[in-house]
């Protein structure tokens, strides 16, 4: 019993380290540096320790220091309690989502079966959607409690955009659920070990889910809620210091979440193509039973986060390629294109499953 608890704690710590401790800060650097290189610029490289710049990686430390030491400003007339609460509501769901995200399969380690998921819920994917829609409250409350017109406009746009895209997002993955016959993320992942990967079986669903997920995260082609050039900074105009940092971090962690969900549903989860776990285990047979399991586990975790990194990279490329959609275009795309197409996708998938 204590062993189980310890294992769970280790898994939680691992997830926290890799999202809050690694991905979120590194992505702030990646976003600047990658956009710079993409646009034929140089990008962040001035922060140095003893004349050593490490490609500008020390900007992460500089940013963190800046956010910790900045004045935490609450504007006059703002609702102090909600103004403080909303960044927490925005950030926590982004991290909590990882509770059901499997980053590896099951492995026998020293007589103990270790499943690399913190909580293996039957309704995993529903849990992800339920939790991630709570984040909407954070953004809306942030906009409202700031007592600022730009913030309120941003919050209203957030509310409408997230609600419309949640419908499309929920419907696009139904095709995947029909194909794999499960809502459990671990089962969907395990089904792709030998079967086809999701993006081959559900190409339309893949593209539409990606679109809807980026819209949910309010990143650039769909960044009408923050829209620097129209609304100053949208819902977090009045935030500074660590609270702003929390919104910032929520966006980057959500990027990782999207990458993880995409990987599990459409991109073969932790599996390497044409290399089932049994074959991989037999390759490391000479290490003994326990150590071969450990090596395979590490390989699978590495492969999983490699795929997540790939999807984050694609999101970054999209962010620096496309201009912002107009607000009515966002709504039109959500309701008139994605929703009917996802319904058609469900019907098509059903017919194919019925016939074959």
């Amino acid at each position, binding site marked *: 019993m204590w062993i189980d608890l310890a294992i769970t704690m280790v898994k939680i710590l691992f997830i926290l380290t890799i999202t809050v401790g690694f991905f979120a800060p590194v992505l702030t650097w990646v976003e600047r540096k990658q956009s710079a*290189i993409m646009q*034929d610029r140089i990008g962040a490289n001035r922060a140095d320790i003893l004349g050593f710049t490490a490609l500008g990686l020390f900007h992460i430390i500089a940013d963190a220091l800046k956010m910790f030491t900045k004045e935490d400003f609450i504007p006059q007339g703002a609702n102090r309690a909600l103004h403080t609460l909303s960044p927490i509501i925005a950030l926590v769901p982004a991290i909590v989502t990882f509770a059901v995200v499997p980053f590896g399969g099951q492995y026998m380690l020293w007589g103990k079966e270790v499943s690399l998921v913190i909580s293996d819920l039957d309704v995993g994917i529903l849990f992800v959607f339920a939790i991630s829609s709570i984040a909407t409250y954070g953004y809306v409350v942030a906009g409202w409690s700031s007592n600022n017109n730009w913030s309120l406009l941003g919050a209203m746009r957030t509310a409408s955009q997230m609600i419309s895209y949640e419908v499309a997002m929920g419907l696009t993955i139904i095709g995947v659920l029909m194909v794999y016959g499960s809502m459990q993320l671990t089962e969907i992942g395990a089904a792709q070990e030998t079967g086809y990967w999701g993006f081959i079986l559900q190409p339309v669903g893949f593209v539409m889910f990606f679109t809807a997920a980026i819209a949910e995260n309010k990143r650039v082609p769909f960044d009408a809620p923050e829209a620097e050039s129209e609304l100053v900074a949208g819902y977090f105009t009045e935030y500074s210091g660590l609270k702003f940092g929390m919104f910032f971090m929520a966006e980057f962690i959500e990027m990782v979440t999207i990458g993880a969900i995409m990987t599990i549903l459409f991109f073969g989860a932790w599996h390497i193509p044409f290399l089932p776990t049994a074959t991989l285990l037999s390759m490391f047979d000479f290490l003994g039973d326990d150590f071969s399991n450990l090596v395979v586990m590490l390989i699978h975790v590495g492969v999983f986060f490699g795929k997540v990194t790939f999807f984050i990279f694609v999101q970054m*490329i999209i962010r620096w*390629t496309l201009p912002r959609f107009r607000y009515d275009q966002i709504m039109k795309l959500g309701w008139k294109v994605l929703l009917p197409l996802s319904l058609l996708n469900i019907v098509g998938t059903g017919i194919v499953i019925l016939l074959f």
Partner: protein
Amino acid sequence: MAYYVDRNVKMTWWERSYIPEILRGMMITSRHFFKNLFGFVPFFLGKKKDREIFTVYYPEETMQFPIAYRGRPVLALGENNLPNCVACGLCEIACPAYCIDIIPGENSGKQNEVERYPVKFSIDYAVCIFCGFCEEACPEEAIFMSDQYDITMLDRKKMKYEMEQLLVPVADLKDRMDFCRKMYGKWNY
């Protein structure tokens, strides 16, 4: 002629279906990304030319300016270790900002010696507008625009350079001298 943007471009259904055009745009940006990435990393190993990035790391790297660039004006120090300047005051008069200040002095008038020389010659760079009129006015090839532009001081008074700070050996000004001869035709009687 005014340029009108045609806002009613008829797109084909291929273009209107978003996805292929988005992919095309992503191809362009990733091409730039990888091209620069592989030109960018060797930059730290000392190779500079391979990258497509035009940004200059300013204090460490400086730009090579064309010879026509007008930086701060300097005085030419002749081969006999005396300034070429004869303190005629033409640059002082030509200067639209009145930043040049000359106090002339008189020599003994012996052979092989110019009769007038500047006792004091100062240019206040806080006032100078880098127009280059002094260079154009000078009949003795004594004042030239250099390629230095970063004159920054914490004290405004230090921006006023005296003659010792202004003098530059004439050998260093060869290119600019040739350029001036060509441009202003000073000695093409």
